[in-house]
């Protein structure tokens, strides 16, 4: 599984497809750096940025995961599956998750430095890092579910990726919020200070991981059944 993940990572980096999400991360960073926290409530604003970074990371990471998995030609995907058997789907997810951690770190690190400089409590900063690591999981899965192995049409897959990201956000506003990733919950808490942000993290983590466990198991089972 590790060997296939390395093969996919190597192919993704050599193909330069990684530049697409990196450019997106760079553009988002420009917004955060030019509109950095200031004034008497700078620390609270910085904690709000932790929540925003995680929300911005979600669609970018889903896109990156889709791009990584689509780098492998269809016939090669068959050959790789033959080489590693049922571990092919988990290997792809692992490779995509690692890329997303790197993208998340690139996006969060400057924001964390800003936060530390304005006096954000260490607990809130750790919660921001943990949230980034968490969000990369469902984002990777959304990207995997919209990859060419699942949705052959590129136009449809982009529509599902963008629509899925929007739906995940919108569902969090209504009574069906238990069905989705609690993006609205963490955004709301992050903009209400460090204490609120750290206190919602366990619930956010549990719901995110449950959502990821269900979608991840279905994705892996799909790969084995084919």
């Amino acid at each position, binding site marked *: 599984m590790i*060997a*296939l993940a*390395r*093969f996919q990572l*190597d*192919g993704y980096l*050599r*193909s330069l497809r990684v530049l697409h999400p990196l450019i997106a991360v760079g553009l988002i960073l420009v917004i955060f750096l030019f509109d950095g926290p200031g004034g008497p409530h700078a620390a609270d604003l910085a904690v709000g940025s932790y929540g925003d970074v995680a929300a911005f990371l979600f669609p970018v990471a889903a896109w990156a995961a889709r791009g990584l998995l689509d780098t*492998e*030609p*269809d*016939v*090669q995907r*068959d*050959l*790789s*599956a*033959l*080489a*590693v058997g049922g571990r092919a789907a988990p290997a792809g997810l692992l490779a995509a998750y690692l890329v997303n951690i790197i993208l998340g770190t690139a996006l969060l690190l400057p924001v964390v430095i800003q936060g530390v400089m304005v006096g954000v409590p260490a607990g809130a900063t750790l919660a921001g890092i943990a949230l980034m690591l968490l969000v990369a999981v469902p984002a990777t899965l959304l990207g995997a579910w919209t990859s060419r192995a699942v949705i052959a049409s590129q136009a449809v897959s982009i529509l599902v990726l963008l629509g899925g990201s929007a739906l995940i956000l919108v569902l969090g506003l209504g009574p069906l919020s238990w069905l989705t990733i609690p993006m609205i919950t963490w955004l709301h808490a992050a903009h209400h200070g460090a204490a609120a942000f750290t206190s919602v993290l366990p619930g956010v983590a549990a719901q995110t991981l449950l959502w990821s466990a269900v979608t991840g198991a279905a994705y892996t089972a799909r790969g084995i*059944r*084919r």
Partner: protein
Amino acid sequence: MRLDEVGFRYRRRGPWVLRDVTVDLPEGRIIEVTGPNGAGKSTLLRLIAGLRRPQRGTVSARPPTVGYAPERFPTDQPFTARAYLAHVAAMRRIPADRIEDWAERLDCTPLLDVRLPELSKGSAHKVGLIQALLPEPGLLVLDEPFAGLDAATRGALPELLTGLARTGTTVLVSDHQRDLRDLPEVDRLLVTGHTVTAHTGTGTGTGHTEVEYTVIEVVVPTPEAARTRARLLAEGYDAR
């Protein structure tokens, strides 16, 4: 290895590509898969290799290590042949020095440092063959392995496959050009009419029967001679 009443279609309500396929694939045999274009030869090979699951029937006793060389090796990958094969060796958990051995045997050592997208069709085909041969598979499935190969490799491949079969590897080959026709111990499967029958040879299919041959003359207009010969070859007959 055995296929029992196997049926396959690509979409849930689509047409059956293969139906009621029951064949034995004995260990250590070379089995040539023939049939007209679009009959389902490549689909049969993918089912046997385990790349697709049949909707009906069962595939049993497949050897644990399977090598598969596709009809068109995917060259749209950002690696040199050597880097690609090193990744394959790592995935298969086998020593990378086997790459050099197989490259030497298929006379393509200088190609190892060429990027995959820059390889000619025949050279790419050799890389496809090496990746299938590297893990020393118990089942080797080759989809049109002779297409695009140079004359020397075309000539050497039947002997190489015979050697593998002698060590117990079951070798399945779809072959339009009938490059295996001169091998004495080749079993044949004919794919036609959405099903598969053991057509000629020994050891394939139920019964393992010896088949008698009869020479017939077929008279056709001269312009149709080449096409008729090709059609007969594709259907598994020997035509000269």
